């Protein structure tokens, strides 16, 4: 499989890698994207706050600030094209004292001096109208109407699907081990599935970008900074109407509360450095910390409404000269290597801007490559994805679902009872080019298994549907890749001991 020669090799299938792949698929280039996990959106892009920041507190002196401000207005079109739910619900930074108020005014003025963003200070009365359940002592807020919420993994998946439709080859379960270069030029990569040739490598490997960069002689370190979350049942999604931030601290925007586009309520994240890049454990301490943070903003937060907890890791480069900013640049040596590293928050909000910037960088270096390329827009490019029917979108006009059902009766069989996902919806996903083979991948695309019972009921059923569709055994279906099989054996294949009822008692005597 390693004979194919590409113009561009992208490492990493997060929101950044896939945004770049999609943007570059406008041009007549041959592009491959490599993701080590079983699905795209398996790294930081699956576990974050999902907020498209308005850009008020990112300074224009930083790359991340500029890219955030530039990208925010681009999301309406992207969401429209890719059929990803996106909602500009606005954000509120909430203050509790006169001192807070002064800080917020200062913040507003500082931001406005840098960019043209819609920002307003609102007082207690208006604040309560917007957020009736907010803590009593909240008296003022900085309101940014253009902030929005999006599903970060749905966006990532849609970008990947759209890129694939436009000719990008996506290799899953393919880990890039090494980048090859000869006489100062990029020549290709080595993966666990063989070698691939190409004269540009775009390093969007998230937490592991430093590892990839090290193979071409770069020397910087990515430090993982953890954030933990609680997700609440849909019942509580309407407790909050905006993205609610506390007063920010030096390091982070603080523990926020927001509705999600799926109608749940999300609380988190905290922020602390961890040692390992695979440390996604939720800790007791962390959960307590975010709980306390949430209670300060919303005293009526329901403790028994939590349906899931999870953690994500920010890929930060604290050291000089990056100082926690993004590191986006083409190397002089070797030519053809482009870093997209240190993409911490607001990386999601900046992804479209990053993709445009990379296109410009690719254009800049195109003539200097080992095999020079030329960016030419292709007429066949289609920015849009088809919208697949979802029962959940037909809440207010169920009668129209009948038509969907009449075309395929599988749309009448509910598989996930908590989230109301039908067999038809599952099979439509399984038929796509980037077909999800794991329960987690199915969950991210359809929400099946992501509801109150967390897949207890529909898990085996979904495994069977996957197995049927791909003609494999249900025992081979995994939660998120090899090693995470959900069913171990068929009953009766292993046997109880003959003396099961008296052996242990005898041991005791």
């Amino acid at each position, binding site marked *: 499989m390693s004979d194919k020669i590409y113009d561009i090799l992208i490492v990493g299938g997060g929101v950044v890698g896939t945004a770049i792949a999609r943007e570059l698929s406008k041009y007549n280039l041959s592009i491959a994207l490599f993701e080590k996990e079983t699905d795209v959106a398996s790294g930081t892009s699956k576990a974050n706050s999902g907020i498209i920041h308005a850009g008020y507190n990112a300074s224009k002196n930083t790359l991340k600030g500029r890219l955030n401000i530039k990208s925010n207005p681009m999301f309406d079109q992207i969401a429209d094209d890719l059929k990803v739910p996106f909602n500009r619900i606005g954000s509120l930074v909430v203050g509790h004292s006169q001192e807070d108020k002064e800080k917020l005014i200062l913040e507003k003025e500082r931001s406005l001096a840098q960019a043209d963003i819609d920002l307003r200070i609102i007082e207690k009365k208006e604040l309560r109208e917007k957020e009736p359940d907010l803590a009593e002592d909240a008296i003022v807020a900085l309101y940014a109407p253009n902030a929005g919420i999006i599903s970060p993994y749905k966006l990532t998946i849609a970008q990947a699907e759209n890129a694939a439709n436009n000719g990008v080859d996506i290799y899953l379960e393919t880990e890039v081990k090494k980048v090859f270069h000869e006489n100062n030029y990029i020549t290709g990569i080595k993966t666990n599935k063989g070698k691939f040739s190409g004269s540009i490598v775009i390093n969007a490997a998230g937490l592991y970008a430093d590892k990839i960069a090290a193979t071409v002689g770069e020397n910087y370190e990515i430090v993982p900074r953890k954030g933990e979350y609680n997700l609440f049942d849909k019942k509580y999604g309407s407790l909050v109407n905006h993205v609610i931030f506390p007063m920010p601290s030096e390091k982070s925007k603080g523990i926020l509360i927001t509705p999600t586009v799926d109608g749940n309520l999300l609380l988190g994240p905290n922020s602390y450095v961890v040692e390992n890049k695979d440390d996604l*454990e939720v800790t007791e301490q962390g959960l307590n910390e975010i709980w306390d943070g949430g209670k300060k903003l919303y005293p009526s937060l329901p403790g*028994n409404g939590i349906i899931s907890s*999870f953690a994500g890791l920010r890929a930060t480069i604290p050291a000089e000269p990056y100082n926690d900013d993004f590191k986006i640049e083409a190397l002089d040596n070797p030519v053809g290597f482009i870093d997209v590293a240190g993409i911490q928050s607001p990386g999601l909000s900046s992804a479209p801007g990053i993709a445009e910037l990379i296109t410009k960088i690719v254009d800049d270096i195109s003539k200097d490559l080992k095999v020079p390329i030329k960016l030419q827009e292709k007429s066949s490019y289609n920015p849009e994805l088809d919208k697949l029917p979802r029962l959940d979108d037909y809440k207010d006009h169920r009668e129209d*679902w*009948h038509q969907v059902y009449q075309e395929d009766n599988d749309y009448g069989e509910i598989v996930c009872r908590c989230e109301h996902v039908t067999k038809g919806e599952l099979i439509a996903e399984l038929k796509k080019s980037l077909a999800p083979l794991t329960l987690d991948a199915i969950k991210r695309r359809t929400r099946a298994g992501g509801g109150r019972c967390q897949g207890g009921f529909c*898990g085996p059923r979904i495994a069977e549907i996957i197995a049927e569709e791909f003609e494999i055994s249900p025992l081979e279906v995994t*939660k998120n890749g090899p*090693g*995470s099989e959900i069913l171990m054996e068929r009953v009766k294949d292993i046997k109880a001991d003959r003396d099961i009822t008296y052996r242990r008692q005898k041991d005791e005597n």
Partner: protein
Amino acid sequence: MKTKRELVIVGGGPAGLAAALEAHKNGVEDILLIERDEYLGGILQQCIHNGFGLDYFNEELTGPEYAERFIDELSDKKIDVQLKTMVIDINDQKMLTVLSSKKGIEFIEAKSVILAMGCRERTREAIRIPGTRPAGVMTAGAAQRYINIEGYLPGREIVILGSGDIGLIMARRLALEGADVKGVFEIMSYSSGLVRNKVQCLDDFGIPLYLQQTVTKIHGQKRVEAVDIAEVDDNFNQIPETKKTIECDTLLLSVGLIPENELSQQANISLDDITGGPIVDQSRETDIPGVFACGNVLQVHDLVDNVSEEAEIAGKAAAEFLLNETKDEIKQSLEIAPGKNITYVVPHTLNINANTSPLIELFFRVKDPAEDCKISIKDNQEELASYTRPIVEPGEIESVKLPIKLINISSDEIIVELITGGE
């Protein structure tokens, strides 16, 4: 796509089945029973162990046998059953939206509705166990379904958290099928399961039960590799020095059931925060006239026999609602509240009219186990009736039968209390 029905029953478990039969017996001719699974019987079909029916049939049956008695009885009656059909919406006008692969979307306008959707289990998330998120963490009921119905073993080395009956039964079931059950851990100082289940499910197989211990963390990236266990003190605080790690590939959770009331909420029916089920009067009628609730959707029962009895009350009441053209005037309405040492009481209200039966049965749970104690029914400070009990446990629903004539015409609330030895 749109039809009208006299009575629609949501859920074909033991509650739905008994309610349908009782409504039919009391003269309702147009009944539709809707079940989302491909068979009737609900949770009972996965409870293949014996121990059901001792009260109701005076016979010890397995879950499927208990269910089949009702299913058989139903089969020659004029009761319509729609399987593989899910009720997806209900509104406060008793309009139901249902979906099935046979008929697609249908709208059903019902004159009366009985809610019998049962309950679901609390998950890892609901009790917030820290750690990683690998495959191999599941609820005991899900595992029960895997093993007994779908035919898969969920794991080989098992730790079970929670010593209620479901946890105990699953320990035996897994051991019988060849898995190694490392132990059952219980945060409380007592097991809420029946003694007989502890003897027959754990002791018989040499499976240890650890009280006042809990799982504090889950390890493993892809699959569960181990769990941390710690002892807890009387206030449920973990004692860090007692922490130990147990290797296993599966963690089963048996940590409580929650009534399945998403539909009730859609219909704007008021719920009791403690039971998680609708607020009902003695005929199991919710605050929407003509909508009734019974079985685990109303309160989590430990014995299916009680479910059947409760469902019969609701089925009969639905029949009265439908057939009584001239509604009896309610003479008195009062609330029944849990008092000292009582968690909740069902029914929540009494609506007394000319037809009310002279004895009202009150169901409730106590907060802590007690022996040689007394249940006292009070109107203000005045005791209306009292009932002695040799032993009460939070794990078992208690009941008393209160004669209506004892109730003061002018009172608006009566209270149920548990009085223990020293008082």
